[in-house]
């Protein structure tokens, strides 16, 4: 039944698309479009902020900005990270939750009103974040996971966004789907992990003593929940891999029981998170290590098993890879980039220069999986499919290989000269290595940005169009 190689080549003919098409009622369709818009739109916002970042560092151009550019650089940087790393991911979870609910409730969910309410809150939260940024309010804090502008309205924006995404998640859990279904069970598992992350944020907020220095406050407020959110992102990526593989090959990387076990494993591993707050001092060292270890122990095996499955699958279908299918491109590039990032992760030090190479590759892998599912499933289901062809191919390859180049270059730069400040005999050799790695990161970054722009352009144009028309 699922052997159509490229389900998006013509009308959405695959069993997946027909099934979703049938269960997506008009209100759910509006919600899915809304969350997809928020997700892709947040990448566009992050892109515009990146442009402002460059402007604020360029002589002459910086004078054109209506803000004092020295401080605005950090303000823009914070919100750039928040939109590309937080809003895009949680909005994607919102979209995935709507999709899963459509099927699990056959288009008629209990607690239906939670959907639109959540979407409006999500949009309001994101708007608040943009507002505080443009008003240049609050001091920039580049703490881990969720950097913030230290202004009450910014925290409020994050909280409103967080609750907004929680509502469709709660509705999905109130309309439990089939336990063997890739999307329904996968998204529900990620949803539970997401609620655990929110719980961690709330507990941290309550436990942090008043008068804590703002840097430590922000760092420890987002440390635990931030780690748990990585389980959500990774789980959604695994759900995307399993789905994309079926769309591209009609075959999944791992069977239904193994998939269930891996997803359940992710959830079980985040459950100790909220407990850590009561067993370890929130401002202590053990608290920090407890969550780092949670990630190391809980987040290595499940994606590794999935990657193995994808490799076996790719090997079995070698010679017949559908190079034009966005599902295939998203899958193979995501797995490749994520796997490289995973390997880099084993070299991590405390604040080694190799650290960014790991983070960026892992994030790039997640992004590719989400982009893949957006182009291969969400847009077609909405009747807004991107025409498959050279441009989609270029978009995925540019983003994927750009990320890969950037991360490898960054890793080499780190490996070449970690704690080496005073130059020794090796200086000459050092600078050659540095030049090569700098060229790699420079080109890679540029190529990846081009791919990202193409994705935003394709997806946003389709999503914003008044009428649902494919192509």
């Amino acid at each position, binding site marked *: 039944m699922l052997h159509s190689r490229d389900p998006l080549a013509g009308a959405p003919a695959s069993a997946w698309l027909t099934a979703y098409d049938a269960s997506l009622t008009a209100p759910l369709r509006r919600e899915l479009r809304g969350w997809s818009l928020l997700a892709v739109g947040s990448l566009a916002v992050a892109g515009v902020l990146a442009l402002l970042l460059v402007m604020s560092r360029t002589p002459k151009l910086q004078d054109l900005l209506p803000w004092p550019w020295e401080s605005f650089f950090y303000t823009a940087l914070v919100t750039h990270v928040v939109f590309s790393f937080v809003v895009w991911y949680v909005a994607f979870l919102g979209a995935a939750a709507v999709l899963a609910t459509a099927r699990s409730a056959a288009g008629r969910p209990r607690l239906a009103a939670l959907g639109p309410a959540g979407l409006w809150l999500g949009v309001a939260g994101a708007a608040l974040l943009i507002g505080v940024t443009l008003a240049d309010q609050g001091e920039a804090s580049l703490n881990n996971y969720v950097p913030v502008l230290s202004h009450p309205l910014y925290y409020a924006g994050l909280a409103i966004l967080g609750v907004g995404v929680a509502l469709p998640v709660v509705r999905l859990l109130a309309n439990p789907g089939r336990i063997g*279904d890739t999307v329904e069970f996968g998204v529900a598992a990620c949803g539970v992990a997401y609620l655990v992350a929110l719980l961690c944020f709330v507990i941290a907020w309550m436990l942090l003593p008043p008068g804590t220095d703002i840097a*430590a406050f922000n760092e420890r407020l987002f440390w635990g929940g931030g780690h748990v959110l990585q389980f959500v992102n990774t789980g959604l990526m695994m759900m995307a891999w399993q789905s994309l593989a079926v769309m591209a090959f009609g075959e999944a990387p791992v069977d239904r029981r*193994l998939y269930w076990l891996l997803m359940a494993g992710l959830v079980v591993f985040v459950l100790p998170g909220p407990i850590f707050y009561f067993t370890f001092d929130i401002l202590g060292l053990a608290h920090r290590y407890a969550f780092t270890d949670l990630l190391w122990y*809980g987040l290595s095996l499940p994606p590794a*098993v999935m990657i193995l*499955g994808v490799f*076996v699958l790719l090997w079995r279908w070698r010679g017949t890879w559908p190079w034009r299918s966005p599902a295939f491109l998203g899958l193979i590039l995501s797995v490749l980039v994520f796997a490289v990032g995973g390997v880099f992760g084993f070299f991590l030090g*405390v604040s080694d220069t190799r650290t960014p190479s790991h983070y960026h590759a892992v994030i790039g892998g997640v992004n590719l999986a989400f982009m893949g599912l957006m182009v291969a499933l969400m847009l077609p289901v909405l009747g807004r499919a991107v025409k498959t062809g050279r441009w989609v191919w270029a978009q995925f390859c540019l983003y994927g290989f750009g990320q890969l180049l950037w991360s490898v270059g960054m890793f080499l730069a780190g490996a070449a000269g970690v704690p080496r400040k005073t130059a020794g005999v090796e200086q000459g050799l050092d600078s050659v290595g540095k030049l090569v790695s700098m060229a790699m990161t420079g080109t890679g970054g540029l190529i990846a940005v081009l791919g990202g722009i193409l994705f935003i352009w394709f997806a946003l144009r389709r999503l914003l169009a008044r009428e649902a028309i494919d192509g």
Partner: protein
Amino acid sequence: MADAMAAIRGRLPLLLTALALVALMVGMPTWRYDDRPEFPRYAISTDAFEAKVDAMVRDHSTGAEEDGMPVVHPPPGDVYLLARRWQFYPVLELEAGRSYRLHVASVDVLHGFHVGDVDVLLVPGAATVVPFNPGASDRPVIQCSEFCGLRHNRMTAWVRVVPATAAPDQHQGAAAGAR
């Protein structure tokens, strides 16, 4: 519907994965945060600690400067290093093969002291004593490991390691005797 076919299927992979997951979970109580070395700590007043650092800088400065900070060559034994936004002060020049006890303390906010395998949280109001024995080929780098604000990433200090002087080492003997 997706699972009619799968690259990895059957009972064996399922069993192996389940076992591995259980092993990782059962391993929880033995996670490394339980067996991190604890270093002795004592309460300080910021002023008194700063006075000790200043005295060390005054008595043992090499005259050199790095990043606007004095380079200090203290004798083996007790060495005082203070952490503040966003530097470790002063720059230390230590002799290879000698034993030092670094007294490290933050004088403003929460910082981290990370060098090699050592990672200590610097809570204002307390000093931590970390044994430090640099080898000849070491170029130890001290990094702040706890986010402390805008320039946290730049809060890094290189320890200069120089060959041991030929002079008899009274300080080390005295320090060892005092313990």
